[in-house]
């Protein structure tokens, strides 16, 4: 059974078709990479999956439940968590409080009171290595720390599906490796399906992803297991150049 399934989803902005007739599915605990150049519709696709926008056409299913028109605040408790391309921390609140918000309104929200949510936050903070920023206002973090905090905030929701929009942008390649490794190990432990969106084919992401989807101008042009996808001529032409080497940027 698929965890998330999109069927022929189209999202337009006026005359611009940002996502064009896209279908795909993710299984529980799967790690999926979505690659596409700037403007290819990745962020819009996330916005459709977590309900920021409703699509003009097509359906979105989560656990076989049709959520195409479910408001976004009802999707988090179902288990859809995300991070943003440009981090959106609750700036005046501390890192601990930000992450606790994830626990409070996520899949465990009904069971956890405020103190228990803060405890969950403390565990996540430790796991993410954010300990020394615990009581700092989130607005004062560096962009990379904000990204980490957002991942923590989403993980505190105990999601079934984690959508990461350019989570590694702006990071040092070594840090990217560490972070991807950490996220994947948390994902495996807790059986979280992860969708990582990236502009470039990054070794760290591609190396770990079980499946790759390539978007081009809103359309899905490739959807295959990673090694097959990397051998696809369209991917080679668009991303890998003649040398066939993957980029890290």
């Amino acid at each position, binding site marked *: 059974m698929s965890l998330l399934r999109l069927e022929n989803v189209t999202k337009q902005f006026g005359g611009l078709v940002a996502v064009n007739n896209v279908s795909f599915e993710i299984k529980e605990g799967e790690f999926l990479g979505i690659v596409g150049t700037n403007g290819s519709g990745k962020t819009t696709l996330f916005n459709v999956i*977590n*309900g*920021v926008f409703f699509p003009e056409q097509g359906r979105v299913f989560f656990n076989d439940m049709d959520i195409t028109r479910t*408001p*976004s*605040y*009802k*999707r*988090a*408790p179902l288990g859809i968590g*995300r991070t*943003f391309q440009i981090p*959106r*921390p*609750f*700036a*005046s*609140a501390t890192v601990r*409080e930000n992450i*606790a*918000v*994830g626990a*409070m*309104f*996520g899949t465990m*929200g009904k069971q956890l*009171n*405020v103190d228990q949510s803060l405890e969950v936050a403390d565990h996540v903070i430790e796991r993410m290595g954010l300990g020394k920023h615990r*009581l700092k206002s989130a607005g004062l973090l560096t962009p990379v720390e904000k990204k980490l905090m957002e991942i923590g*905030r989403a993980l505190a*929701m105990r999601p079934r599906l984690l959508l990461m929009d350019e989570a590694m942008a702006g990071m040092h390649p070594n840090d990217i490796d560490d972070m991807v490794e950490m996220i994947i190990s948390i994902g495996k432990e807790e059986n979280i399906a992860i969708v990582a969106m990236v502009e470039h084919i990054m070794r760290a992401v591609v190396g770990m992803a079980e499946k790759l989807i390539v978007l081009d101008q809103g359309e899905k042009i490739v959807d295959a297991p990673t090694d097959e996808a990397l051998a696809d001529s369209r991917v080679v032409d668009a991303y890998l150049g003649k040398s066939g080497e993957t980029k890290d940027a």
Partner: protein
Amino acid sequence: MNSKLKKYYPLLPVCVAYLILFLVGRNVTGIWQLVSTLLFYCALGQAFNIFLGMTGYVDFGYVAFLGVGTYGMATAVTGLAGYEGLGVGVIVIGFALAVIMATLLSMAVGAVALRLRGAYFAIATIGVNEGFRYLIEGANLWNGSSGMIFTAELNQILGRDLAGRVMTFWADILVLIIGVAAAVVTLLYMNSKIGYALTALREDEDAAKVMGIHVTKFKIIAFITSASFAGMVGAASWALKTPYVFPPEVFEIHYTIEAIIIVMLGGAGTLMGPLVGALIYGVSKYYLSIFLPGFQLFIFALVIIVIIVLFPEGVVGVLKGKTRNNRLKQLIL
């Protein structure tokens, strides 16, 4: 247990401030009038902060809730004047009516306006206040523009002596109690999921939704709570202190502006902020009106610009930053 109690430490400075205010008022001759004004500003700021401070939404029609609260008390007193046995019970009924009316109005306004974002909400609320005032006058509700004068009825139910004491003293004490109660509710909210949800939506409404927060629900909770306290402030400070009500006075937008200044000056969204803002604003307004009559508004306009530019988090916001690393931090919220 100890850590549970710690959450309520920030109420200590609030209570101390009110106690000092009360003692100064009782013991310094001729100052009760000023203290009474300050108590009004404190309660007004504390009530408004639950909405403006905690959600970041500006309601320019806020004074309408004080207005309907005043009408609530006025309606109770005039309607029940025949039941002399009621005694102070009439005041309890008056408060209940004030709260019910403010709640109903806030539900009606909130259900529509709170779906609007930031500036659009602010503009819509200006219309609500003016519209409501013209409705009362035009439809001749509650005597329309002739207003209601109910000193005689208050005397009739409470007796002349007690009615006099209510107007000159007990009304102010009730305002004090309302101010403290609003502070307690603010802290309860801050320590609960409601407070976390409000902080999240104030900082980033779209991100809050994606995190699973039903933002409209929480905005309405803050709005209704804030409005019902405003209704009580109107009932105590306007109806009981001066037992008459005229639409142009109780729907006067400058009270909303004052409330905004108080909350911003003290620190929007903080517990102590409205109190600090009210004291600074009230005292300086009082002395400015003596030494520089006519210039108060101009000076406050400058002050508010300076605050917004230099200290957007207000006096208490700055204090909170400064005490983050010492023992005082438990007290300042």
